[in-house]
């Protein structure tokens, strides 16, 4: 039996955490390259500085592939959580490049995809919605007596929406086993936290809903893991909805097109010195959990994986335009435009 080195984790688990951090970083860096090469379809979002929040949180949940595990609703900046829940790397690139072979067949972007067996549902762009949806998903766990919890990520900005409030209050009142991860990265697009709340910490909102909350250093993957493990245990034991606030900083713009010139560069530099991947790397070395060679090998490995996955996605086809009429309903196809009906001159079609 492996020796427990840090909060209940053995060496293999620590390496898995490390690997997930590296993968998040490498996959997003690969996206930047793909964009420069002209392969990307829409916007590019980075989670630089926030990787440990997503990775540590997802690692604390039960991740299965048979539809019986815990359930995740990530944001575009919780890519690491998506990967840990089994989100496929090639699918990730397919989504960003709008390939026909992607899980949404090119109809939707980036992390906006679902896998109910692996246990995740991607977000939509309107904010707050997924808190309502996850309230319902975790309500179903209660109704069916399933030992499962849900986790939903949302940032500063979403907390201002009506949906955020309505979803959280519903989950609290119904004692849904739902963990709200507040990505307190201090920005909602160009708006600092103070434009979205008067509070110092989002955990101060929790008493208003009658739920428990913890605030944690979002750059410390082990601290995140521990806090979420506690929250998950409370949720599982029938205490209902929980909040965990991740304190960290969005070190790049809202999206790649945002140069973030409204942010003090000194502040960015300050947080760059607290890079979650480098912090964990140093800790792994300092504690003697792994030799540097092994860690560097992991980095090279995930970079290689990203390259292979991206190349595969690049080689795959774009959707066939006329397929746009399918899947609007389960049982009815939409008509093609009558002006394109080569096989028919019927105006009704």
């Amino acid at each position, binding site marked *: 039996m492996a020796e427990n080195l840090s909060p209940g984790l053995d060496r293999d688990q620590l390496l898995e955490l490390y690997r997930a951090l590296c993968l998040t970083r490498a996959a997003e860096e690969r996206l930047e390259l793909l964009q420069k090469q002209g392969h990307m379809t829409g916007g590019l979002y980075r989670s630089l500085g926030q990787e440990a929040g997503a990775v540590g949180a997802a690692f604390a949940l039960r991740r299965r592939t048979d539809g019986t595990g815990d359930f995740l609703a990530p944001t575009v900046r919780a890519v690491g959580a998506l990967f840990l829940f089994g989100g496929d790397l090639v699918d990730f690139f397919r989504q960003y490049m709008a390939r026909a072979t992607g899980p949404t067949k090119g109809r939707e972007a980036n992390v906006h995809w679902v896998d109910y067996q692996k246990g995740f549902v991607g977000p939509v762009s309107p904010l707050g919605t997924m808190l309502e949806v996850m309230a319902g998903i975790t309500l179903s766990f209660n109704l069916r007596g399933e030992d499962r919890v849900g986790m939903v990520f949302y940032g500063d900005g979403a907390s201002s929406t009506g949906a955020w409030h309505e979803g959280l209050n519903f989950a609290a009142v119904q004692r849904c086993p739902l963990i709200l991860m507040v990505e307190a990265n201090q920005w909602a697009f160009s708006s600092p936290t103070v434009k979205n709340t008067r509070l110092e910490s989002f955990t101060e909102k929790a008493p208003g809903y009658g739920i428990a909350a913890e605030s944690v250093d979002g750059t410390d993957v082990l601290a995140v893991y521990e806090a979420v493990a506690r929250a998950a245990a409370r949720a599982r034991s029938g205490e209902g909805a929980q909040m965990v606030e991740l304190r960290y900083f969005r070190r790049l713009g809202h999206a790649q097109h945002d140069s973030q010139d409204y942010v003090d560069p000194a502040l960015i530099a300050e947080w760059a010195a607290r890079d979650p991947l480098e912090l964990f790397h140093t800790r792994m070395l300092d504690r003697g959990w792994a030799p540097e060679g092994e860690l560097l090998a992991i980095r090279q490995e995930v970079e290689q994986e990203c390259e292979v996955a991206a190349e595969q996605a690049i080689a795959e086809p774009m959707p066939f335009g006329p397929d746009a009429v399918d899947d609007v309903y389960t049982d009815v196809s939409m008509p093609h435009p009558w*002006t394109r009906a080569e096989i028919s001159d019927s105006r009704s079609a």
Partner: protein
Amino acid sequence: MSQVVPEHLQKTARGEEVTLLEAISEGLYEEMVSDDRVFLMGEDIGVYGGAFKVTRGFLEAFGDRRVIDTPIAEGGFTGAAAGAAHMGLRPVVEMQFMDFISPAYDVLTNYIATSLYRGAGPMPMVIRGPVGGGNRGGPFHSQNIEMAFFHTPGLKIVYPSTAYDAKGLIKAAIRDDNPVIFEEHKGLYRAPALREVLPAEDYIVPLGEARTVLEGEDLTIVTYGAMVHKSVEAARTLEGDGVGVEVIDLRTLLPLDEDAIVESVKRTGRLLVVHEDTRTGGIAGEIAIRVSERAFEWLDAPMLRVTAIDAPVPYSGSLEDYFLPQVDDVVKAVRYLAAY
């Protein structure tokens, strides 16, 4: 407060061309200068100048009491705009993308649109923001939202297609005593072909008046927004066929300029409606029934439409191009009708 007009908002004063986006910025700016009851609310409109930079420089010019960066709460700040309008202010609210107007649907339809009728007084306010597809924005950054509100008496809906109209209409919308939803097609914002020199003097384009873009004798295309330009392109293509196409730009969708449509159809005898919005419940249906009511005897062919497919807006370019109406579709439809 505003004393030195920001450099980038002086293009018209200098006699230079402006884009449709710059025309809107100038219109907003001028109305804020001339009427201190006008103020702005929206997400990232201050420090950042708006997601598309329509309000760049406004915070510096007017201060944070008149250019308010709001929390992400479309329902909340639209409701707040209603309250401010009750008190005699004239709020202009920006939706970062019009796709996100839906949380404000309740207050817009139940409260704002009914205010005057309920005896609660007029609601002078503008809700403006980017709409439209073609930018690979996917289902949540590409929608046209006019028909979600077209069915609500009490609202006005404006959708400009040129820089001249955009400036004149935004100014008219701000001066209007009714709530106006103002749609700005993001594909037209910076389109080079739409750059034009605008009059240096103050002007408005009255709400509720369509504009004849092209005159023709054989067929009327009624359209608006980005489809005006695709329709004109189709009409140019068809000049060689000897088909005279009249193109009418609605500019204001609600109230609809029924007289302009009917008058044109009575002359041409043929009607094609082109809209970027999806097909079912699109404005083509309303226009066709009005023409049927008032000009049925003048029709020489069925009234037809070219529209987007009834589906969410897809992300991938190949799907989105198929989803959206294209110039070729308009050409084919016109040829079909001309030969009918």
